[in-house]
């Protein structure tokens, strides 16, 4: 039950080492049952909350906080810890400045599905508890039971690592994950034309708000090659030089340009994607972006026999010549 998990999280946060300056955790949003990420001071533990609606990935905020001084404690689900690990491998995070409170995760709720399934108005909802395989929603002295399978975030069904691999303290019993590409295998059965028309239809809906890129903890490039005026300009940069800067993609929004954007983005995640699903969750047009990430992951796994859990980054591993 998540209220028990929350108590344990608070307990761990109260006995954190003295040199911790911040806790990156969840607090409940006002007027809604979901949690939002928050940077808390160690004396603000009472504000913390945790439920299957604590779906955001804290890795991005942790990376931002690394710019300031002090140590950071973070509440991390399996995929969150994986994102942190990846950022550590890429030297964006100093592990020794991080205290990971790992939470063994049964999966998170898809908030869109939840909003459709729940019979209460959002501000009325007092609590959301996952008990066994049921989500119990309480409001106005009533309760509604929703099967977890009806509202679970689909990506969690294929979770390889529900329990963080790297943590300082772990809350909850470890859970087994599995490597499962059955959804991708199913999709691969479609022929080329069917897949093409599927993706063109999907990409025609993209509005290029770039939320998928912005929420992704691994899309941290300060300058992205799809931005209209990329590469640094300074007062000394002559006009001819600025004009000669390559521009891969402007702000043209149509199915094929949108496709180029998404493919470039996904390819940069080869062997890196933590599988947290923030991109798909953020997409206001509900594009199935994880299908791309998972297909790539499958290729990386099958062709290069690489798993994101390896200590060495994927591209570095490619540089190592096999013996003989």
């Amino acid at each position, binding site marked *: 039950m998540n209220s028990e998990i929350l108590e344990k999280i608070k307990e761990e946060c109260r006995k954190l080492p003295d040199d911790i300056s911040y806790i990156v955790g969840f607090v409940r*949003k*006002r*007027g*809604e049952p*979901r*949690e*939002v*990420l*928050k*940077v808390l001071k160690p004396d603000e533990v009472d504000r913390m909350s945790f439920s299957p609606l604590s779906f*955001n990935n804290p890795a*991005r*905020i942790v990376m931002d906080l690394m710019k300031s001084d002090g140590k950071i404690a973070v509440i991390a689900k399996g995929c969150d810890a994986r994102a942190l690990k990846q950022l550590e491998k890429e030297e964006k995070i100093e592990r020794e400045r991080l205290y990971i409170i790992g939470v063994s995760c049964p999966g998170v709720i898809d908030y*869109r599905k939840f*909003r*459709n399934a729940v019979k209460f*108005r*959002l*501000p*009325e909802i007092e609590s959301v508890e996952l008990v066994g395989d049921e989500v119990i929603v309480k409001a106005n002295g009533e309760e509604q039971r929703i099967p977890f399978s009806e509202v679970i975030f689909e990506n969690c069904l294929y979770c390889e690592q529900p329990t963080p691999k790297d943590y300082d303290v772990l809350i909850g019993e470890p859970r087994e994950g599995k490597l499962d590409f059955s959804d991708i295998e199913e999709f691969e059965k479609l022929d080329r034309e069917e897949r093409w028309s599927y993706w063109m239809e999907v990409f025609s*809906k993209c*509005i*290029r*708000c*770039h*939320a998928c*890129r*912005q*929420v992704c903890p691994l899309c941290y490039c300060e300058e992205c090659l799809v*931005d*209209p*005026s990329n590469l*640094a*300009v*300074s*007062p000394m*940069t002559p006009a001819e030089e*600025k004009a000669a800067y390559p521009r891969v993609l*402007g*702000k*043209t*929004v*149509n199915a094929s340009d949108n496709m180029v954007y998404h493919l470039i983005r996904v390819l940069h995640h080869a062997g890196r994607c933590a599988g947290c699903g*923030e991109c798909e*969750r*953020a997409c*206001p*047009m*509900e594009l199935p972006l994880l299908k791309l990430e998972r297909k790539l992951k499958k290729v990386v796994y099958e062709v290069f026999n690489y798993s994101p859990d390896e200590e060495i980054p994927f591209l570095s591993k490619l540089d190592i010549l096999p013996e003989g």
Partner: protein
Amino acid sequence: MKVYEGNFLKDVVAKLLDDGYRVYAPVKEKNYHVFKVVENADEVDFDYINTRRSPKDVTFPENEVLMKYGEWVEEIPAQADKTAIVGIRPCDIQGLRLMDRVFLEDITDPYYEAKRKNLLVVGYACNEAGDYCFCTSVGLSPFKSDYADIIVTELGDKQVVEIRSEKGEAVASKFDLSDASDEDVSRKKELEQKVLSSFVRSVNTENLKERMAEAFNSDYWKEVAENCVSCGICTYLCPTCFCFDIFDDGELKGVRIRAWDSCQFPLHTLESSSHNPRREKWQRLRNRFYDKFYYMLVRKGEFYCVGCGRCIAACPVGIDIAEVINNIPSGV
């Protein structure tokens, strides 16, 4: 006040299509509705609280070609076909009005003007407030709009049709409308009461101008922006965000395009000198709230937020414009 026995909205879509209009109407995608150009009245689905995207792209498309160039320059004339939008909610009609004030007052934008002049607006009064709706807080009504050409209220077995302009009259006259009975009028009133009582969210606008003027330098904005990811969802879904960028696509031969831009993107304010007046994300996020509730209030005399709640519903990190405004600290 007139009534139509049947589904006026759907029948008006069919009629307008017959008459050669380009018709935007709500279409159900997998899990949400959007306004799309339809070819057949059967594609349309009016069972929605509001559309995921605002319909601002009807008059202000995300991409608009202004010029073609190559060995010679070809200007694209500002012109538009007869167009109608059917089923637009009162908040979005206010969005359209506010956009008109940006693109047609003072300096007239010919591309916008051509589309707007040729646009017929058939509104659709709300039967229910969504969990994120707060239009009543910004001075709007969920079932009234004087700015539409026609506004329709659903009564279940029939629809109340209110005609608000000559343009609307010309279309409505093609339908068999009868005068509303006393019963229809009282049923409509009842429904309106029900709608008003279904609001669960509000924004405190009391002394807001003063409160915002006072809080500009507060650290509050840093806290609000703590988990902002600087994406463009809030601005792209917003019915009143009008910022755009103009760029040339193609070196020796190409097109000059106007495209939506967002004040949340760092490049939006990056100057050629490399100076960026809104370098930090909290400055950019603060700008959005000040734009909606302060700058435009000063410039145009009204809020540039219509209370549709789209930005709240879609924000990936849970930033909530209503909460942000309500919690502005005082005395800083």
